[in-house]
């Protein structure tokens, strides 16, 4: 081959690199700094998309609403939302990107992705309000100065559940958990808190998030003769648990679900089978059941109406997390402006903030601000939630 050919191929290569660089440069023209920026990382696609989806919708709804009202102190909100595809690496990258641009970040959606980013936010000194439950997200507090979370810890949920069991005289339980971050964290808390509540775990089964049949796990639990079954998962497996529990004729043993079941779609999917399923639930899901003088009644009903009108689907706990984190971020921006350090201090000192998931009382020791009293024990009755006795 000739020198000319080599020359041509080399210049094509060089041209390609130059083009690449130009593209990189051109794609980066930023916007003016006038609006207040809020970064958001949600699992809009991938395995936890059913979390990210309502979170995204809620965050966008709130942004539009506030911007229609003239923004915060005259500054419109710019929401920079990234999808982590339920992938820790992508979440990590997304937060690395956001810490350079925004003074406060909400999300990520899941415990796994949240744990993948806390280090980044911490290092960059940018406050991050996670929407996931694991207590590891905000403990140990010494290395989580910049991290907050708005989802109640699993220990609250388990505490509420055990409190109800004790009232019912249940002492022996079988648990089944999904082998993802959500299930693993629930399992840990169930096993940890059972002894101090006088409850024995007689069966401990696990399954994959995409399993198509849980009869084997349920059958195994059945052979150990528990007084109640706890299923801890999200997504389709919790419907499967209900269906299989019914089909195997195990409905004489009460079934407790985690708060992950807290979505009306789940009741529809499980159909009549779901009757009698018990679960601790945040009040955002049961706005209409609350007493009119309940402090959360107003915010929950407003959000519920707006969301259901706009998206024609029931509200969920997850959307509620986005509401809480978004409003906390906005409250901070309103009070102290777009300064990361001040926002952090503001958040840490926030008390009595009434949100969808409870009344938040943050402190230097507690970056979650919720307790098990922010949950209600509900039971599925006539295809809807009802407060459990």
């Amino acid at each position, binding site marked *: 081959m000739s020198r000319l050919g080599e020359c041509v191929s080399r210049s094509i290569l060089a041209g390609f690199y130059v083009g690449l660089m130009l593209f990189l440069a051109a794609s980066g023209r930023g916007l003016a700094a006038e609006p207040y920026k809020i970064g958001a990382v949600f699992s809009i696609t991938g395995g936890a998309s059913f979390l990210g989806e309502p979170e995204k919708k809620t965050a966008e709804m709130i942004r539009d609403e506030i911007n229609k009202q003239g923004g915060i102190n005259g500054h419109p909100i710019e929401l920079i939302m990234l999808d982590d595809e339920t992938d*820790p690496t992508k979440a990590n990258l997304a937060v690395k990107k956001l810490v350079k641009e925004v003074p406060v970040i909400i999300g990520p959606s899941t415990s796994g992705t949240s744990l993948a980013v806390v280090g980044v936010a911490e290092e960059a000194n940018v406050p991050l309000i996670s929407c996931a439950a694991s207590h590891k997200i905000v403990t140990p507090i010494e290395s989580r100065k910049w991290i907050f979370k708005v989802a109640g810890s699993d220990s609250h949920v388990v505490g509420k559940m055990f409190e109800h069991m004790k009232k019912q005289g249940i002492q022996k339980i079988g648990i089944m958990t999904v082998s*993802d971050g959500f299930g693993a964290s629930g399992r840990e808390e169930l096993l940890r808190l059972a002894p101090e509540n006088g409850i024995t775990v007689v069966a401990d089964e696990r399954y994959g998030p995409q399993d198509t049949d849980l009869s084997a796990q349920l059958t195994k639990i059945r052979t150990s003769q528990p007084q109640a079954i706890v299923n801890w998962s999200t997504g389709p497996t919790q419907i499967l648990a209900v269906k299989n529990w019914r089909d195997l004729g195990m409905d004489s043993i009460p079934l407790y679900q985690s708060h992950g079941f807290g979505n009306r779609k789940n009741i529809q999917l499980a159909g009549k089978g779901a009757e009698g399923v018990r679960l601790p639930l945040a009040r955002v899901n049961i706005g209409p059941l609350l007493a009119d003088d309940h402090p959360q009644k107003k915010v929950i009903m407003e959000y519920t109406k707006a969301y259901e009108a706009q998206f024609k689907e029931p509200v969920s706990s997850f959307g509620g997390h986005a509401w809480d984190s978004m409003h906390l971020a906005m409250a901070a921006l309103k009070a102290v402006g777009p300064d990361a350090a001040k926002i952090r201090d503001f958040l840490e000192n926030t008390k009595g903030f009434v949100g969808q998931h409870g009344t938040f009382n943050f402190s230097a020791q507690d970056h979650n601000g919720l307790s098990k009293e922010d949950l209600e024990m509900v039971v599925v009755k006539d295809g809807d939630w009802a407060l459990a006795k």
Partner: protein
Amino acid sequence: MTRKDWRIFLLTALLIAAFPWMVQPVKAVSHYVDVMVFAGIFALVCLGVTMLMGYAGQVSMAQAAFFGIGAYTSAILTGRFALDPWLAMPAGASLAALVAWVVGIPALRLKGHYLAMATLGFGVIVHIILNEEVEWTGGPSGMADLPGLHVLGWKLSTELAWYYFVWGTVFLALLFCFHVLHSRVGRALRAIHEEESAAEAMGVPTARYKVQVFVLSAVLAAVAGSLYTHFVTCLNPSSFNLMWSIRFILMVMVGGMQSLWGALLGTVLMTFVGNEWLHVFAEFEILVYGAILLVVALFLPKGLVSLFTRKPIVHNA
């Protein structure tokens, strides 16, 4: 290495060295340095994929598993036993090498789809173990707060430091691979790909070489895994599942499997495509990703580098 390779090597090294200074002044793309750190880590894995699949012609759907073995060995030894990362890294690489050797001996006797299935099965098993051995691996919630990395007493605290460290490692590995390829060993690997029985009859111990190159690819992946651990400082099994094994293959495919440069180009490009550039498509991202793959596989089966190569490569029908 041929002189042409040396020229591309220097040109690319220069470009990589200059890259941060080109993007960092532009605020909106300054975080591209982060993306490039990941691209560099993935590139180490992909160099192994190229050696194994592109040159020796052996399919492996288990590279994410070796990536994970390296990452978790580093994480467990440094996080739970407070071992120095520089000792944990070779430990991870050795474990990956040992596992690759044990699995490779029976697996690499298989060919084609059967080999693909065997490696795929092995990869999924590793992923399940990472998920289930909660005591060691932290299970599905993974491990957090892992230590960072010090190089010669210097903590790699900024992305820029990481960038140069990771890409330095990539270029060392690249050099190693190039030297292997332009040697007796490299020729033997290519011979195995083209005519295994002829290679065997010419005195090439094909079984041993296949296992060795499998081990090499596992070691590269494991080293990448260790770097990943100390860069991200947290781990989660979902970064090491089958989808990632497939992604590594795709990166190499897009760049061009029969060239180390292709592997590099493909890795960088697909890391940007997967993490950056498709965000504009929002929810359509997955479709655009699929479409890119389809177009490359259909119309550029030898990858992007085939646009630059001069001589047509002769192929067996």
